[in-house]
Every structure is written in structure tokens, then in C-alpha cells.
């Protein structure tokens, strides 16, 4: 028996279904977690700022992306049907799933029909959201994660804590230990050099890739005009899963649609620069149905609702459906950096989680819109310009509040919808709040917030303007 491992699955320490303040308190008591997070998010902030700064049309790209996504939301029924028609014509089988259960059942049935009892998986937020691995386990199937970070989390029997880098809460030393103790075939004398760890993962998964019958993926984009799916990745595990097996099952949220193939010229500039801080990610795969002699013969697409049409019904909240899961908002969020992803109690943590989780599962995450200081850094970096503070305030307003408070919140929402006014209000609040500072909360805001803070404390905005704050932290 080896010594007690120094890694402890972080998720296991945080009580399941704990409300955010309680879960956050547990996370705040984990210094190694905070150190790992601060190091990783600091690295990525600097990289993102540098490559976003290389493009002199960055703001025009964000405007275009926001507008394309708003257009998609307005035309969702038409685009979904167009995608289905074109994918089907290219040989794909298109399925529809109202909720997680339906999607999991369809996927499990397809795996069995292919004569398999296990699958290789490309990292996908949609499959995490529907808990596909857990469902497969329960019905006697096994899903093998192949993305390095997902593999780490799966081996550690932990839960992902970040959208892009699910193992962000582990450092290299802990990862080495996880491999050493849990992988089964880790090379003897494995060091904690990242290159050695990547090599160990390569050896561990290679035979599985070359012999897998079925793969499960998500998709970053679904192009209506062509019926194509797009997967953006780094390691080549995505290419392996999308190319080598006979059967491919892709589970795709209905909000992933794009009208045209050439819309990728916008999103494929914004996404890699915002997520890993690269000009382009190492590998992007695009496929359309099935192609004789190249890749999987049986290609399935499961179009997933699972609460998305609820989000669509909310005029302010629906912008959350524009999210391209880059995770830039997590990396700049002062709350996320201190608490980590597990405290949010949902697969989508950080600022995007705070606006998406309560809308996807109404009534279950009502405290998450309060897991924010409304500093606005998330809005500033979001490549599709989701006004996260606006949606946070809007969602807070949905809760049981007094009438006067709701009116004040509506006024605040109107201010935030216009960025210049919002910044002025924040600046005003910062100056105005000095005498009222009390344990980091202020009792009164200048108008229009004043009508709200009469009955509720509001966290104090950071001392610097958030633009200055961001710049300072981005370096």
C-alpha cells in the first residue's frame, strides 16, 4: 500500500448541493487550491491579453460575434431544421433530446446497437451537463475520457472545476501522483515534467484510440448551411475520436448553431485567443455527415434542449446562449479565482455559470447570481459580449423581492445595458461608497442603485476602475 496521496479530490471536500456561500467557505479554506488557481489563471490572463491585443479589429469581431449569436437565437427553429436537413442529406442521423435523460438513453442505445460496451470521449461540456458518464456507468457501459485534463479528473475520481481545463485545481506534482497511483500503466520513474506527463497519457490511451468502435463528442459549432460540426482541441485526442471509430455520436446543444460556414471566420479568431490564449488551437476538425472511406461510417447527432428553450424565453437572459465556452470570464473573475469551480455546484462555474445554471435549472441555483461583485471584468473579456452583470442583476430581480426593490433593479438593469453609463455608475459608486464602506459592503448606491441599497447591501466595487484593474491583473 502506497503512502496517503497528497492529492485529495477537491470536489469530495465540498458538500454536494451546498449553497454557494457555504461551498465557497470550504474552498476558501484550501490554500493549495487557491495557489494553483491563482498561478494558472494568472498565466492564461497574460496570454489572452497578448494575443487579443495583436488584432486591431478585436472589438469589431466581438460585435460581429454577438450579432451573429443574437441572430441565431432569433432564428433558432429555422436554423435547427436547416441543420437537420443538410446533415441528414450528408448521411448523418439526427436525433432530438428534450432533456438529459432522453439524450443519455439515445446515446446508450446507439452504443449498444454498434455492438460496443465502451466508448472513447472527447471533452464536451454538454455530456458533462447531462452526466453521460454516470448514466453509462449505471447501465453497464463505460466512457473513457481522453482529454488530458478530463483523464486526470476521471482518474482522481474528482469533478471538473473549470470549463476549459477541468483539472486546473491540480499542479504538476499532484498530477504526477494521480498518474502514478491510478493510471495502472504509468511509466516507472515518472517525473512531474509536463512533457513526461503528456507522454504518459499518450501511451496510456493510444491502444484504446486505435481500437475503439464508438466515440462520443460534443461540438463547438454546428453549421446550419452545410450540416457540419466543428470540434476545437489541442491534443489530437479529438481527431482520434472523430476519425478512427466506426460510430460517432455527437451531443450538441441547440444554441451551438451558426448560420453559415464562413461565420467561422469570426468565431475561430475569437475562441482560441480567448480560451487558451493561442492565435489558433493546434487542431480543429470539421465534418459533415459521413464520408465513404474516411472516418466513421455511422454518424449521429443528438440535438439537445435540456433547459435551453427556457433560457431562450427570457429576453434579457437569453444572451447566455451566446456563450462559446471559452472560459475567459472564469479566468478574470475575482470570485472564481478565490473559490474555484466546485463551489458553484454546477458544471458551468464562474460568471457564465452564475447566469446559465439558474436559467437551465430554474429554482435550483438561485444563490449563484449573488456570487459576483458585479465588477464587470467578465463582460469586458467575453468574446461574444455577453453582458453578464446585466443578466446577474436581472436574475437577482427574479427572486422574491419587494416591489420597490424590483423597480430599482430594473433601473440598474437599464444602466448596465449601456456600458458607458454603467461604468460611470460604477465609478460613482466607488467614490460615493467610501463613507459607507462596512466589511466590504456598502449601504447606499448613487441613483439608480440607491433605491435598491435602501433594502439590501451591495458588495463594494473594486477601488480601481475595472478596466485598470483588469489591465493590471492581465500583465
Amino acid at each position, binding site marked *: 500500500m502506497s503512502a496517503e496521496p497528497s492529492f485529495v479530490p477537491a470536489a469530495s471536500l465540498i458538500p454536494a448541493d451546498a449553497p454557494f456561500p457555504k461551498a465557497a467557505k470550504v474552498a476558501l479554506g484550501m490554500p493549495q487550491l487557491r495557489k494553483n488557481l491563482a498561478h*494558472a489563471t494568472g*498565466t*492564461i490572463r497574460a*496570454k489572452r491579453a497578448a494575443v487579443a491585443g495583436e488584432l486591431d479589429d478585436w472589438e*469589431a469581431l466581438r*460585435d460581429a460575434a454577438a*450579432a451573429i449569436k*443574437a*441572430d441565431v437565437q*432569433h432564428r*433558432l*427553429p429555422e436554423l435547427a*431544421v436547416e441543420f437537420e436537413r443538410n446533415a441528414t442529406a*450528408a448521411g448523418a442521423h439526427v*436525433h432530438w*433530446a*428534450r432533456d438529459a435523460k432522453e439524450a443519455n438513453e439515445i446515446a446508450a442505445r446507439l452504443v449498444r446497437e454498434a455492438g460496443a460496451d465502451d466508448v472513447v470521449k472527447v471533452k464536451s461540456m454538454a455530456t458533462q451537463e447531462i452526466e453521460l458518464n454516470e448514466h453509462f456507468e449505471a447501465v453497464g457501459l463505460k466512457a473513457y475520457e*481522453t*482529454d*488530458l*485534463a478530463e483523464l*486526470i479528473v476521471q482518474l482522481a475520481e474528482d469533478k471538473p472545476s473549470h470549463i476549459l481545463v477541468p*483539472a*486546473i485545481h491540480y499542479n*504538476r506534482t499532484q498530477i504526477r501522483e494521480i498518474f502514478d497511483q491510478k493510471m495502472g500503466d504509468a511509466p516507472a520513474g515518472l517525473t512531474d515534467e*509536463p*512533457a513526461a506527463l*503528456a*507522454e504518459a*497519457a499518450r501511451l496510456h490511451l493510444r491502444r484504446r484510440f486505435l481500437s475503439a468502435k464508438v466515440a462520443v463528442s460534443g461540438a463547438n459549432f454546428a453549421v446550419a448551411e*452545410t450540416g457540419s460540426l466543428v470540434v476545437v482541441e*489541442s*491534443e*489530437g*485526442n479529438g*481527431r482520434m475520436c472523430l*476519425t*478512427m471509430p466506426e460510430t460517432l455520436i455527437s451531443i450538441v446543444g*441547440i444554441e451551438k448553431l451558426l448560420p453559415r460556414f*464562413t461565420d*467561422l*471566420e*469570426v468565431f*475561430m479568431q475569437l475562441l482560441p485567443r480567448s480560451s*487558451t490564449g*493561442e*492565435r489558433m488551437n*493546434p*487542431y*480543429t*476538425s*470539421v465534418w*459533415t455527415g459521413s*464520408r465513404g*472511406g*474516411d*472516418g466513421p461510417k455511422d454518424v449521429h447527432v443528438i440535438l439537445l*434542449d435540456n433547459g435551453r*428553450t427556457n433560457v*431562450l424565453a427570457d429576453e434579457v437572459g437569453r444572451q447566455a446562449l451566446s456563450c462559446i465556452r471559452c472560459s475567459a470570464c472564469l479566468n478574470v473573475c475575482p470570485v472564481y479565482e478565490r473559490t474555484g469551480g466546485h463551489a458553484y455546484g454546477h458544471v458551468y462555474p464562474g460568471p457564465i455559470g452564475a447566469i446559465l445554471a439558474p436559467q437551465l435549472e430554474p429554482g435550483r441555483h438561485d444563490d449563484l447570481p449573488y456570487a459576483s461583485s458585479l465588477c464587470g471584468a467578465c463582460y469586458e473579456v467575453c468574446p461574444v459580449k455577453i453582458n453578464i452583470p446585466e443578466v446577474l442583476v436581472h436574475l437577482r430581480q427574479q427572486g422574491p423581492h419587494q416591489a420597490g426593490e424590483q423597480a430599482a433593479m430594473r433601473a440598474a438593469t437599464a444602466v448596465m445595458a449601456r456600458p458607458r453609463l454603467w461604468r460611470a455608475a460604477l465609478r460613482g459608486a466607488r467614490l460615493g461608497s467610501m463613507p459607507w464602506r462596512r466589511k466590504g459592503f456598502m449601504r447606499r448606491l448613487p441613483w439608480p442603485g440607491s433605491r435598491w441599497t435602501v433594502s439590501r447591501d451591495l458588495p463594494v466595487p473594486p477601488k480601481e476602475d475595472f478596466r485598470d484593474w483588469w489591465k493590471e491583473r492581465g500583465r
Partner: protein
Amino acid sequence: MTARSTAREEILARMRQALDGAGAAPGSPRAYRRLLDAGTDITAMLIDRLVDYKANVHHGLAAIGAALGGAQRVVVPADLPADWRIGGAEFVPDTGLSTADLDGMDAVLTGCAAAVAVSGTIMLDTGAAQGRRAITLVPDHHVVVVRREQIVGHLAEALPMLDPTAPQTWISGPSATSDIELQRVEGVHGPRRLDVVLLDD
């Protein structure tokens, strides 16, 4: 009604209901760049970006042999130009090789559909001299030949050069990961070595 058509109709109905009264779709402003500034040396930029992401860059047909390094067995698409088969390696045309056969290859030599300077991206769409996706994935070393007219400055110029419904692979450097402390490390499941031969003279 089958379960499939019930789910489909119900989701479409939910979407329509959610959008009831949402009004017309907003327009999409497209004020972003589609070209680099005139006079940009796109070949120099491509080289800079390729090297930055740890690809090796060579010049001229004759460099193919050197780019292949010590590879003994090299898989090639059946339609690879004959004059690209340079050097002492054995060139094995892909006539539907098995996965095990591909796993036994030291390298793969192909052309490409386009190359984007600004991001150092090589694009494959399984067209001429590119072969099917598996041959550029399983071998650990990919040598790709880029003709001068295939180099463009901007992503927006490259997309119209691709067959949108053919399987595509966009490649920016060798396989890498940022999953350990968010630092980029080369070499996971895809080819760990990428050599680019520019026919730019």
C-alpha cells in the same frame, strides 16, 4: 408518433413559443478585417507563426528529404505528385491501409488546401495530395508541403479555398496541451513533429 418525432416537434414548439413576440432578427455588423494590410509579407509571417508553435520550416522541393529526417517508411496519399517523393525513405501509397499498417509508419507526407499566415494554420480538406484524415493522424511525424499560391494572410481568405462539406483538419503546430498549469506543452496524441516545406521560390 415516434419518440423521435415527438421530441423534435416539442423542442421546435418550445423554441417558437420562447421567441413569441421577439421581433425580427437583428442584423449582423461585419466591420472586422478580411485582409491584412497591403504590403504585409505573408510568407515571413507564416514562417514566424509556424516556428513560434514549434513547427520546423524548410524551403524548396529538395528539402523534403531533410524534412523527413530519418523516416524509413512514409505513407503518402495515392495522388501525391511523383516529384515530391524525395530522399531515401520507402514511400507507401495509401490504398486503404489498416490502422495497424498506419501505426507502423514513421511519417506521412502530404500537401494541403491552404495556409493562413496570421495564425500559422495549415488547412487540409482531403483534396488533392492530402489523403484521408487517418493518414495524417496516426503517424507521429507529419511533413506537409505548402505551395506559394496556397498561402493567404487571413482566415477569411482561406475559408473559401476549402470544400466546406469535406472532412477538414486545421493544424497549428504539432499536438500540444495546455492542461498542466495552463502552459503549452508539445506532444500528446497527434503527430508530435510537424515539418512544413514551403515551395516559395
